[in-house]
């Protein structure tokens, strides 16, 4: 009897043995920091003296008295709203081309995918700084076409575009996901519709897009979440300043400057929580509208 009882107890403990590392990590590295950054966001904390409670002051300063903060929002939202749709359209377009059953699909897929793996690295940001510099290859090519451009990364109006193009250049990973999705669309749909006399464009609008819509939603949300948090390219291209004239002041870069440059850690925490809310707002908005444009197979 006693032995049986022990065995039972032992087997109820086993799952927690497997879970232990994760549970500790959840508390120490996620749960506790999550709550304490919420607390810190209502304090004035400079890392040396202990935090003192200031209520909503950080949030009020952010939204009413900090033009830099607005600039950071403007830059980041522009970046996300331009780069993500461009990147996804490009990814979809190439996925459609590659899905026609061309030779050497694996090679094309690989070549297009490489930028996604290294696009976020310092090396590529350095490369980009040169490619879009005063006499970089982009301007040389434009020069052949008779277009004279200043340095992209050195001019406030163009600097953000070099970052947007860097993002679009990494279209490989959503493209691979689109390709997998395209393979799932039953071939009969196309056969039936061409019997009805539908052309390629009509098929794209009425079959491909609706069937692919759950994947478009998924790709869109993933890319929005990750591009709101983009940091490295802006940091490298502007040498950590967000310049020229704050034109590449990404949200996370401004957060970093506040938290770890000026050690205003309360303010940085308030910025981080606002970022969480901003991302939640945009993804929530997309989910809400998705009922109108996303079609799941089981609904016909």
């Amino acid at each position, binding site marked *: 009897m006693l032995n049986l009882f022990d065995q039972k107890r032992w087997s109820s403990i086993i799952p927690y043995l497997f879970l232990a590392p*994760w549970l500790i990590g959840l508390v120490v590295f996620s749960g506790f920091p999550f709550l304490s950054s919420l607390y810190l966001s209502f304090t004035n904390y400079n890392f040396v003296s202990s935090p003192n409670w200031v209520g909503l002051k950080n949030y009020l300063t952010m939204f009413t008295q900090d033009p830099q903060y607005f600039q950071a929002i403007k830059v980041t939202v522009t970046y996300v709203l331009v780069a993500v749709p461009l990147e996804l359209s490009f990814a979809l377009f190439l996925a459609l081309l590659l899905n026609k059953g061309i030779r050497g699909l694996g090679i094309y897929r690989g070549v297009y995918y490489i930028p996604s793996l290294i696009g976020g690295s310092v090396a590529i940001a350095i490369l980009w700084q040169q490619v879009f510099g005063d006499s970089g290859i982009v301007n040389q090519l434009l020069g052949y076409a008779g277009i004279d451009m200043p340095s992209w990364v050195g001019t406030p109006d163009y600097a953000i575009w070099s970052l947007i193009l860097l993002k679009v250049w990494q279209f490989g990973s959503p493209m691979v996901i689109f390709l997998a999705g395209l393979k799932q669309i039953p071939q009969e749909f196309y056969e039936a519709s061409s019997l009805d006399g539908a052309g390629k464009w009509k098929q794209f609008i009425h079959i491909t897009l609706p069937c692919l819509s759950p994947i478009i939603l998924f790709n869109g949300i993933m890319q929005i979440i990750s591009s709101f948090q983009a940091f490295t390219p802006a940091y490298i291209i502007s040498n950590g300043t967000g310049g020229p004239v704050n034109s590449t002041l990404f949200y996370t870069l401004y957060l970093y400057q506040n938290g770890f440059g000026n050690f205003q850690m309360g303010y940085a925490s308030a910025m981080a929580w606002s970022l969480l809310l901003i991302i939640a707002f945009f993804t929530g908005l997309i989910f809400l509208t998705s009922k109108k444009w996303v079609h799941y197979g089981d609904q016909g």
Partner: protein
Amino acid sequence: MLYPILWMIISSFKPTQSILSDNSLWPKDLTLSNYIKGWKGTSGTTFATFYLNSFSMVGLAVIGNVLSCSLTAYAFARLEFKHKKIWFALMMMTMMIPMHVLIVPQYIIFNKLEWINTILPIVVPKFFAVDGFFIFLTVQFIRSLPRELDEAATIDGCGPIAIYFRIILPLTVPAIVTTTIFTFIWTWNDFFSQLLYLSGVEKYTVTLALRMFTDAGGEAALGSLFAMSVLSIVPVFLIFVFFQRYIVEGIATSGMK
């Protein structure tokens, strides 16, 4: 597509003064001097140190992620415990939190532990399964394995621990490979954490050393900057070449970034 990368590779073999003037893809004189000069690094610390730092950081991160995520995934996929659904939902939610929300308190904790300017803040959390993404990936993989295997083993007298080591672990090798590849690439490229926690030149990783080059830089150092940039991509590129199948299938089936 790959033109910018090709241009960088070729430029890294050109004498510095001709990089921006001569942009033909087949330059007249090739030289290794950029690599030799670049490898020396700065202030007595060479790229040999930077590579050693990067590889030990990445190596430990991979071991941590593989061990901890595999253990956790087994519990979620096969074992029964209280409030499993809530725990699972919590795990999925941690994946959605932007790292910036956690970074300030984490920095304070690591500072209290006197871990700043070591790789510990980057490496230790990996041993506690903080990357929910890899848990999720492995859970999905274990769920696809037939339950009959577990049942047969139970009849043969195996407990949950023996089942994990004898059946599940050997069969999840593809998930482990995917975890290894992506932990390697993401940790290698993760500039933000390295910038935050590593401050002494002797602790610098390849990524941070490159950033330092751009600071010191100017046109004169462009050649060695390019050379070391090319070298910094080589490990990621080699992984891509050898494990392409795992990478592309991994993304296509699990939809990772």
